[in-house]
Every structure is written in structure tokens, then in C-alpha cells.
């Protein structure tokens, strides 16, 4: 088991290096000179431009720049952006907000998704099941930004139940609507996955045996059906953590939240390459980390997986 964990950890390293190199190349090898564009119409004096190039290592070969960046990642010192603000500070400001948003979304999709999925799976073919299934398909088909705008109009503007935008200092209350929007599509997937899985297990032999030896329906559902059904669901939710971080680009844009997604999108449009690469790296780390966690969790949850 330990050997398996170690091997998976080592496998992650080349993937991380490759993914960051790819992103770094995409951002920094783009045409146009960001330093020349800094001073507006008239441009900055030659000497200042040279100094900025020196400071950001822009006069060195691309691969050297990448190594400076890697050194920055390891030492948590990613340098400053063009306006002089430390990039690490920008990340420190943005990350907690997105983390809270993603956590709230995960709780919503997990609790509601599993509850509805269990209920529907145990009543497969009945009215409740069909209604839930149709709704889940609709949620999957409608893009997140449409759900976001829709809820903004209905819940935020017309009913005036929840705040429409989160603004500078988001709290639980103002993040509630964005997190529901962020969770919507994943909720539908969790529901469908749980439903299929529960239905498969409910007709399995071990459940019949448990019922036959006199266990109550509630106990069988809790101990035998739900536990076995949750293995694929847990793995989905783990992988989804990475997707939610990327999904925050859209959700945070709609609700005007200063999280990783919102800041990243702004930085891309302003050409703040250092910030873009740093925030993208954060996303990639979460993405790879979530996938790794799921792999390890899967090995713990399902003993049939061989560690070879």
C-alpha cells in the first residue's frame, strides 16, 4: 500500500512539470511585447524598459525563465506583477474565497445529490424517479452561466431572497447563491451516479441476504446499499473539486467575486502574464491533487484494486 502511494506520488511530478511548462509556454510565447505596451501610447523610456526586462528575466531564454518560475513556485515567491503588487499576495487574497465557494458547492452537490439519488434509485420507474431524472437532464444540458443568470434574475432580483453579487468581502450568505449555481451541474451528475449505483446494489444478492436474515429495511439501506453505492460517487466528487475550481472562472465572473477564477480572468484580459501563470499553476495543482487523492481513496475504499 505504502509502495503504491509512493509510486503514485512520483508519477505526479512529471505531469506537474509538463502541465506548468505547457501553460507557461502558452502564456509567455504569445506574440507581442508586454513591456512595450506598458507605457500606453508613448511607451516607457528605453532605460526603464530594459530595467523591467532585467527584473522579470525577459531578456533570458525561455527555458531559463521557466526555471526561475519553478524556483518561485517552490519558494512561494512568485515575484511581482507589472504594477508592483506581489503575486503571492494576490493568490493569498483570492484562494480562500474560491476555496470557500468550492467547499460550499461540494457540500451542496454531495448532500443533495446523494439524498435525491438514493431516493430515486430505490423507487426506480416511479413518478418521483422520472421527475428527478428529467430535472437532472435539464440541469446537465443548461450551461452553468445560464443557470447563474437565471437564478440571479429569479432569486436575486425578483424574489430578492439572496444577494445578487458578492462584492469585496464575501461571506457565507452572499456566497450561497453562487455556490448553488456552481454545484448545479455536478449535483445532477452525483444524483444520476448515485441512482444507478443504488439500483444496481438494491437488486444484488448480498442485499437480499441481508433482508432475509431479518435486518430492517433502514439498516440494510444504510449499511449495505448506501455504503457500496458511494464508491463511484466519492471518486466523482473528488475529481469534481478540480472542475469546480475551473468552473469558478464563469461563476465568479457572473457574481462579481474576487476569487481565483475572477482574478485569473481579469489578469488574462489585462495581459498580466506573471499573475496568469501563477494562478493557473494553483488551479493545476488543485486539479492534479484532487485526481491523486481520488486514486488513493479508491484504493482504500475498494479492496479489489490491486496495488501493483
Amino acid at each position, binding site marked *: 500500500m505504502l509502495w503504491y502511494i509512493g509510486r503514485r506520488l512520483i508519477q505526479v511530478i*512529471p*505531469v*506537474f512539470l*509538463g*502541465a506548468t511548462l*505547457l*501553460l507557461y509556454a*502558452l*502564456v509567455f510565447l*504569445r*506574440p*507581442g511585447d508586454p513591456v512595450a505596451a506598458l507605457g500606453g501610447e508613448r511607451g516607457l523610456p528605453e532605460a526603464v524598459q530594459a530595467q523591467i526586462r532585467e527584473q522579470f528575466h525577459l531578456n533570458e531564454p525561455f527555458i531559463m525563465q521557466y526555471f526561475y518560475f519553478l524556483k518561485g513556485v517552490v519558494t512561494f515567491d512568485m515575484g511581482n506583477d507589472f504594477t508592483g503588487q506581489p503575486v503571492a499576495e494576490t493568490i493569498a487574497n483570492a484562494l480562500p474565497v474560491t476555496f470557500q465557494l468550492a467547499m460550499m458547492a461540494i457540500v451542496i452537490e454531495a448532500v443533495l445529490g446523494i439524498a435525491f439519488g438514493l431516493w430515486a434509485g430505490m423507487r426506480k420507474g416511479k413518478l418521483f424517479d422520472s421527475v428527478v431524472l428529467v430535472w437532472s*437532464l*435539464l440541469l*446537465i*444540458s*443548461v*450551461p*452553468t*452561466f*445560464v443557470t447563474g*443568470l*437565471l437564478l*440571479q*434574475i429569479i432569486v436575486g*432580483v425578483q424574489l430578492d431572497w439572496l444577494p445578487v453579487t458578492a462584492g469585496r468581502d464575501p461571506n457565507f450568505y452572499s456566497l450561497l447563491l453562487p455556490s448553488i449555481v456552481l454545484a448545479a451541474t455536478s449535483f445532477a451528475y452525483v444524483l444520476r451516479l448515485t441512482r444507478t449505483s443504488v439500483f444496481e446494489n438494491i437488486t444484488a444478492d448480498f442485499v437480499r441476504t441481508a433482508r432475509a436474515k431479518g435486518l430492517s429495511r433502514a439498516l440494510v439501506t444504510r449499511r449495505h446499499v448506501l455504503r457500496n453505492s458511494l464508491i463511484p460517487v466519492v471518486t466523482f466528487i473528488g475529481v469534481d473539486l*478540480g*472542475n469546480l*475550481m*475551473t*468552473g469558478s*472562472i*464563469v461563476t465568479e*465572473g457572473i457574481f462579481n467575486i474576487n476569487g481565483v477564477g475572477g482574478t*485569473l*480572468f481579469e489578469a*488574462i*484580459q489585462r495581459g498580466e502574464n506573471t499573475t*496568469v501563470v501563477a494562478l*493557473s499553476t494553483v*488551479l*493545476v495543482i488543485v*486539479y*492534479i491533487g484532487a*485526481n491523486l487523492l481520488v486514486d488513493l481513496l479508491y484504493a482504500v475504499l475498494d479492496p479489489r484494486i490491486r496495488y501493483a
Partner: protein
Amino acid sequence: MPENTRPNPRPGQEHFVAGPDVVQLQVIDSVDTSEAPSSMWRDAWNEMRRRPMFWVSAVMIVVVIIVSIIPGVFTTALPRSGCDLGNAFASPSGEHPFGTNQNGCDIYARTLFGARSSVLVGTLTTTFVVILGTAIGAIAGYYGGWLDTILSRLTDVFFAVPFVLAAIVILSLAEERTELTVAVVLAAFGWTSIARIARGSVLSVKNNEFVTAAKALGMGRFAIMVRHALPNAAAPIIVYATVALGTFIVAEATLTFLGIGLDPSTVSWGGDLSTGQSALRSNPEIMFYPAAALGFTVLGFILLGDVVRDALDPKARKR
């Protein structure tokens, strides 16, 4: 109870005693061995045909495709040049069935004409992704060795870069953003799942007897891969591609909504939703039609994907 079973079976065991008429040898004998065997695809088609959901989704997709090819047949209004700024936010009328938006454009016409870019991006991206993913996955799986190591790590790397993030970074520096540009960018980071599916399928048939036989008969490696290994991967790839087509349409609409997808001059649902957002508080109803059209199209492909998966997966068919 049948007469000629074992004498005096114990209660409850009757069923397990297999008499001649339980096995029904005549049924086995009556199988016509000269008849052509029914293929997996024929079975799947017969299965699919009986499902009402298949016809529902097929009709939805056909409607969207027809509208995307000949939108002009269904309306006389023009989506771009027919706009009248003096007639903005008009209520639905005989002339404008869905009313007009803030630029005075006919919403009905724009919704119909917007189908083209979505369908185009969806089909182009899916085509690219299937070709690229199958090629990479099949080569990695079939040739193995160092080529497999390199291609598999490459797949891992592209998989680790979030799809939407990469698309935003690349598209933000593209000068001209047509349907083809968006499709190429989406495909550049969307091929990884198909590569993994193709690799797995090829690996699973690689050591079968029929592959060894083909090798012994002198068939080349590439020919074996195309003729014997790839058809085995076709079913899971088709299932994945059908659902993926819907998600690519969603991705395009999302990017266009963010302002970095298709050019604003292209009539598209994502673009209309983006412009409609500015009138969110005063006239939210103008966003309804592009959103509904988008949802309708994606729903069609997701439903079809569901039906195709059920039909091609014999395990699911039994239930």
C-alpha cells in the same frame, strides 16, 4: 410441474431439476447456422429502435441540424442587417414572434441563425477530437514500449491542464476567432479522454488469438491495428463522442459569453446571452430564447448519448 423430471423432488427444488423440456434442445437445434450472424451494431440498432427516447432525441437533433443549415427558410427577418434601433425591446408580435432585443434585432431570427455556429463548433470539435484521440491512443496502445510511455505521459499532461482555462488563454491571443479557430482550440485540449479509451480498448484486444493469427498470416502492424484493434474501440468512443458533442457546444457558448469565444459579429447563442446580460434587470425575457435553444440542442445530444450507451453496452441491456 413437468412429468419427466427427477422423481420426488423436494419442495422448492423443482425448478432446479433440468428436464429435457427445460433445456429445450429443439430450440438449440432449430438455430439456422447458415444465417449470417447478427452483428453488435445490428443488435444495438434493433435495441435502440424500440426506445422512444431514441426517437425523441433523434428528432430534436434533426430539427437543430435542419435549422442550422437553412435558417432562412423559417423566417423572413434578417438577424443582423434587419435590426431597427428605434424598435428595441419590442413585445412579441406578428412581425417579431419573440420580440426584439436591445439593438432592435428580431430575436426569433437570431435564435434560428445562431444554431449554425453552435452545431458547426460542436461537430468540428468532435471530429477533430475523435481523430486525434483515436490516433494517439491506438498508437500508444498498439505499439507499446517507449512510444506508449511518451504518448501516455503527454496525455496525462494535457489532461492535467483544465480545459476551459487553456481555451481562455489561447483564445485571448487569437486575432480572428471563427468557428474553426474555436473548434481547433477546444480540440487541442479535449482529446485526452478519447485517447485513454482508445488505448485501453486496443490493449485489451492486442493479445487475442485473432490478432496473433493475422500476424502469422503476414499482416502488417498498422493494418492489424486499423482492421482488428480499432473496431473494438469504436463503441465506447462513439458513446463518449455523442455526449462530448453536447459539452463542446456548452464550452463554445460559455467562451463566447465570456467574450473570448466567437467574434461578436458572428450570430451565436452565447453572444446573444452575453449582450442580453446588460439588460438583465429591465428585460430578462430576451435571454430566454437563446438559452432555451442552447439547452434544447445539448439535451438532444445527451439523451442520444444515453440511449446509445444503453444499446451498445450488453451489460446494461439485460435489465
